[in-house]
């Protein structure tokens, strides 16, 4: 593996990140909120750091698969690390650990925050937070493909790391087209959310921030009380609609925009996603009504928004789920684990994997019943290869092990099991809100520094879906 080639691409990513910081600087100067020097300094430091490998290393057309994985992994790590500089410079309430946490939470589109008072931040810092979501949602790959004119084979290698094997099976196109389409859909959804929220009467600044958070399924809101601040059914409906859209495969959405709407609903994965969503909303609504005694309307409104928000791993909140009955809290955790569809910005294990696992289990049971039969796992009419089925189960095993270890680490810091498990799941699934001593409005500031650092790392592990990280970090001689 050519480390210098990886450095070049990571450098390009940092230069782009510097551009984002300087954009926020321009906004800060325009509104004169006093935070301009933070973004000027951060932008310059980030730019200079990224510039060196770009100057040194010549343009490289061909990348190996391992180099592709490494670029994605190290670019994410670099962006999260350099992205924390504005927070670190801002100072209280951010120390170095919480700056890392907030930065990782932004770029991995987790949306967990350690802030207990979001409104106290200057507007430019709030804008930067939201932009970290927007940038992160698109992923490092998309930015590399926009800036570098002719990646050729390199683009193919990079995109395989970002778009998992499962997503490729669902929508076969040349990789460069996939990335262009993702970009168009992404920007299109952002504009649609923005306009819809403005029509609902949301102030322009808040609408921008919510739009960035929604399309990236991030969850950073401009207020501490998240979407509950607005107390508006229309806002909640708009956000729910676009959160659902944002966790569908972008390729399917692109086809839908070109007129093939049926394709979206013909997809087995989308159908499974909507089925799980409907069941979860139904169970929670019934539970809230019969156990908590809430009115039907209130139960449906609260239950549906929170389930959609957490299944899409966005993390917006209109209520504190800690006050919900235990069954509803459990359903909430389960939908966080499931997450959205591959090929979207959502987190979790992805509905695709759930579909593969269900199909794999069905095929296995079928083979047990009919040992002589040829029974394969299928997604619709398409046969799923053994490699995909095996890799899905391996992924789940690693996912569970990593989550358990992290939960134990949090418990070692003195937190109860509910808080530890929910925080771990929320971070690895890039969802955001937890339970227990955390609330649906976050405030991970209760955790000590080393837990905040580990949560940030866990968010990156979750965003990269583990395998990319393992491939990039495993020494070559061991493989």
């Amino acid at each position, binding site marked *: 593996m050519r*480390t*210098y080639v990886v*450095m070049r691409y990571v450098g390009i990513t940092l230069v782009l990140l510097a551009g984002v910081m300087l954009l926020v600087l321009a906004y800060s100067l325009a509104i004169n909120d006093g935070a301009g*020097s933070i973004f000027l*300094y951060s932008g*310059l*430091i980030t730019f*200079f*750091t990224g*510039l*060196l*490998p770009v*100057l*040194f*290393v*010549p343009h490289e057309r061909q990348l190996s698969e391992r180099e592709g994985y490494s670029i994605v992994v190290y670019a994410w790590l670099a962006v999260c690390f*350099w992205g924390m*500089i504005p927070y*670190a*410079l801002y*100072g*209280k309430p951010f120390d170095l650990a919480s700056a890392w946490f907030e930065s990782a939470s932004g770029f991995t589109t987790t949306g967990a925050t350690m802030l207990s008072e979001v409104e106290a931040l200057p507007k430019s810092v709030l804008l930067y937070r939201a932009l970290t979501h927007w940038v992160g949602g698109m992923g490092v790959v998309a930015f590399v493909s926009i800036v570098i004119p002719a990646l050729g084979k390199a683009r193919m290698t990079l995109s395989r790391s970002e778009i998992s094997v499962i997503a490729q099976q669902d929508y076969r196109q040349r990789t460069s087209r996939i990335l262009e389409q993702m970009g168009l859909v992404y920007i299109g959804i952002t504009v649609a959310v923005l306009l819809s929220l403005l029509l609902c009467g949301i102030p322009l600044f808040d609408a921008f921030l919510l739009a960035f958070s929604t399309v990236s399924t991030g969850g950073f809101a401009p207020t501490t009380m998240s979407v509950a601040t607005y107390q508006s059914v229309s806002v909640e409906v708009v956000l729910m609609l676009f959160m659902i859209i944002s966790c569908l495969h972008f390729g399917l959405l692109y086809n839908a925009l070109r007129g093939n709407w049926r394709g979206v609903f013909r997809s087995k994965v989308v159908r499974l996603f909507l089925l799980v969503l409907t069941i979860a909303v139904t169970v929670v609504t019934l539970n809230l009504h019969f156990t908590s005694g809430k009115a039907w309307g209130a139960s449906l409104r609260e239950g549906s928004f929170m389930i959609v928000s957490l299944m899409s791993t966005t993390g917006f909140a209109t209520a504190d789920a800690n006050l919900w009955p235990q069954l509803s809290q459990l359903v909430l955790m389960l939908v966080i684990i499931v997450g959205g569809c591959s090929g979207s910005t959502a987190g979790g294990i992805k509905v695709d994997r759930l579909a593969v696992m269900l199909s794999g289990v069905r095929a296995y049971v079928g083979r047990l019943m009919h040992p002589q039969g040829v029974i394969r796992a299928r997604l619709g009419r398409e046969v799923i290869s053994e490699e995909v089925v095996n890799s899905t189960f391996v992924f789940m095993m690693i996912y569970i092990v990593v989550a358990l270890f992290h939960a134990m680490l949090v418990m070692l810091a003195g937190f109860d099991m509910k808080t530890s498990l929910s925080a771990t799941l929320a971070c690895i699934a890039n969802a955001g809100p937890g339970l227990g001593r955390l609330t649906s409005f976050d405030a991970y500031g209760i955790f000590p520094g080393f837990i905040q650092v580990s949560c940030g790392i866990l968010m990156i592990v979750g965003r990269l879906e583990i395998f990319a990280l393992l491939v990039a970090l495993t020494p070559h001689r061991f493989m």
Partner: protein
Amino acid sequence: MKRIRFGIRGRVLAGFLILAAMVVVSGALSIHELKRMSQEVRSMMRDSYRSVQFGQGMLDAQEMENEVLLRFVAGDYGSREEAEREFAHWHEAFSSSRVQAHGNVTHEGEEVSLDSVDAASGAYVQAGHKLLTMEQPALHDYMQLIKPAHETVKRAVQKLITLNQEHLYNASHLIDSFPERSIRPGLIVMIVGVLFALMFMYLITTFYLRPMMQMRDATEGYLRYRDRSTVRIINDDELGELWRAIERLMERCDEKEGRHRGL
């Protein structure tokens, strides 16, 4: 657009310039933060401390005014005029501090607080003059007329003093955060600088040092064993040109040796 060609000198110089720029930016930000904070704290402390001093002056003068009235009631003064003169003297001292406090308004709420002091002081002076014009003032008159007005003035002045003391307290908190806020840019550039230096070292080694050592080994190998090996130069710059020149030299040597053998 003509592609800008970076040679060895350009790349190495760029690396050191970038490092220097990062240090300069960090230093500039640290200085900026220090200056800004020290200005803020200095003005907070100076202005707040002065306001507290003026408040204390008002309280002292107010106590003396009150003492004059009590002594007048007790019959300590030889004449009414003597009491009035002394009362006027201490009221002037009070007014002097009050006017200075008005000229030192820096915080939110201070103006409103001073307006309360003005109103209370005006009412007290009126009550004081009423007592001084009485034929035979008694303690009962003092308790009814003067004491409530005196307490009101004291409370108003105390509120002003408390307001400024709070600002002094906040300023001291700001001083607490001084080291952290001014050190942070330096700390960040230290961490980033170390990573940058490691990256720079790696790139210099990969692109220049290692190829140079390989060229040396290849040249020695040729000199001893006439064994021509390949050196991969990644960047097409002066080092690449050097290796190509060495390769041409080796070819020429081979050609000449071949001709000699032929002879």
